[in-house]
């Protein structure tokens, strides 16, 4: 519908009382896009790494996520098995291909499949690009090793977050995504996830667990500084 395109663009210009932008005006917009300046970052994230991690944990718990801290990636299988046993959940999971190759022998009872999530999957295991302390938000990016369906289809969502990926603001997290995109291309999806799914649609009473995950468990991996 290219007639529509030209008509809409010229209607905008007519309303703004000018013609198409050219020369320095257009260049200044392009320069703004290239520089993508930050606006105000809340001062609550002006913290050292240890306090930032504490803020992340308290914010994540505040939105009904659960959080465990473990020392190394090698401890992930046992920590996942322990969480599922504790919550009385099936010991069957689908893991992001980025995580599946790890040594799962420490959790012999766990049934682990690698790939995207299917309708029948009970537990999805994913890995985060970043954790934003400001609001306890996880950032996950899609890719061949990190399918998006893991984050939404299974009723239980477990996310591995390396401790050194905890940052203060969304902007810092996005710098990482943008940096990687400049090398390997834009991810199809970037998901900012703050707690398990919820609704207030029934008489404004908050109900946790709607169409997305009913529970979100975060494993922070790495020794505290």
């Amino acid at each position, binding site marked *: 519908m290219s007639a529509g395109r030209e008509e809409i663009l010229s209607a905008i210009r007519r309303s703004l009382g000018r013609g198409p932008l050219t020369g320095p005006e257009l260049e200044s917009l392009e320069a703004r896009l290239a520089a993508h300046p930050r606006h105000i970052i809340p001062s609550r994230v002006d913290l050292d790494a240890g306090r930032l991690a504490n803020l992340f944990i308290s914010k994540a718990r505040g939105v009904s996520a659960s959080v465990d801290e473990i020392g190394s990636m090698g401890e992930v299988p046992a920590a996942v098995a322990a969480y599922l046993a504790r919550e009385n959940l099936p010991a069957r999971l689908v893991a992001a291909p980025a995580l599946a190759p790890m040594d799962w022998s420490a959790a012999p009872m766990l049934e682990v499949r690698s790939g995207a999530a299917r309708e029948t999957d009970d537990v999805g295991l994913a890995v985060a690009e970043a954790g934003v302390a400001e609001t306890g938000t996880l950032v996950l990016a899609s890719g*061949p090793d990190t399918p998006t369906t893991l984050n939404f289809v299974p009723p239980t969502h477990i996310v591995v977050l390396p401790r050194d990926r905890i940052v203060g603001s969304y902007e810092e997290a996005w710098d990482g995504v943008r940096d990687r995109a400049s090398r390997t291309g834009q991810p199809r999806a970037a998901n900012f996830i703050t707690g398990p799914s919820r609704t*207030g649609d029934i008489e404004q009473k908050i109900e946790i667990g709607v169409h*997305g995950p009913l529970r979100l468990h975060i494993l922070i991996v790495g020794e505290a500084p």
Partner: protein
Amino acid sequence: MTAPESTSRSFPDNARAALGDAVLQRALGNLKLGFPVKRAEVVADLPEFEALRDAAKDIKNHTLAHLDAYLEIYEANVVKSGGHVHWARTANEACETVLAICRDAGASVVTKGKSMVAEEIGLNAHLDNNGIERVETDLGEYIIQLRNEPPSHIIVPAVHVTKDQIADTFRAAHEGLDPARPLTESRDITDEARNRLREKYFAAEVGITGANFLIAETGSSIIVTNEGNGDLTQTLAKVHIVVASLEKMIPTMEDAFAVLRLLARSSTGQEFSVYTTVSNGPRRPDDLDGPEAYHVVLVDNGRTAMLGSDYQDMLRCIRCAACMNHCPVYGAVGGHAYGWVYPGPMGAVLTPSLIGIAESGHLPHASTFCGRCEQVCPMKIPLTSMMRRYREQSYQSDHMGIFPRKLLGLWSYLASRPTLYRFLTRLAVGVLRLAGSGHGVLRRMPFADAWTRTRDFPAPEGGTFMDRYRRNRPT
């Protein structure tokens, strides 16, 4: 045309019926105690909130002043990521475009996330009338789809429905389940909706969502949700269609983050919504999931005419609903009384801008001008002054009834003759004080039964303002 018809002309009757509807009044009571309280808490917890409002206003003003250029840059970046952009001048063009994409995809089942612009263009009826099985996946939208009602609020579309009514609706609509099953708790209802909708996500050929932002820098679209239905809708279908009006444009992710810090806080009183999803084109060659095709339908439907007009500021609106959550009029009559897609103070400005003041002349009058809407608007939209401007327009045109016009004419005659005005007001105050003596209120008043039918009129306590001013003025 598929665009929804308005009943805004009968706002006074709609409002009267709403005030007498006990079930509706109970449902609206939940709203007043919920969102405003939570909003106040999270705003108090962010000292930068006021400064962010100014920043967000500047960002949107900058974007609107360069909207053509940003749209072109955005389009080029969508194409670069493998997506398609369609430009729709009218509601009808937008609906036809979406339908054509659905047909090309061979779609029989279409899942849909909540989208106010889809309501505005009448997309639901258009798909239904053309043999597409449309499944609303937002819980509130699903409830009102089953009840065959329009939304009554822009973020909690079923706010007018009580839990018992939802249970009845589910029992009637969901065949094959035990009729005696308990649906007394929100949990039961939520679980039943979850189970019903699960299979649809996987069956749908097309998933339709709206957008909270379109990012020029990358050609991405952003949706902000809590339930996870929007993500299931757009990730599991073979084709993802984004329907978005032109003013959703924003230059960069940094700009979006500034506005996002305001959106959930203003809206539901959350610090951040559960899911903020940035989508960019179709699945990549090595991806294991995601849609195979990605389409954006850009909808004008009146926006270009608002640009450069007295109502341009309304294009900053991010649809957070803070204005209606805090509005005494909305809180008393609910969203359906407004008679079209957008209720509350934002609707009282946007509706005349989109469907004309002739059709919606009552809406800018549906305000006490208490100004709470402006105080809480994260984008600092001057809602009351725009409503006032529409009141002037409706007075100047022939759309106002003869009685209010005569009355306003009489008032302006008196107001421009101070001696006569003071004499008459002094007389009126004396009479009203006598009439209300003993009670302090008047239960009936000549020419004002529209007021006294539903509430008492407070009797004057002293003299006129001018008399008291003169008496108390420091010398």
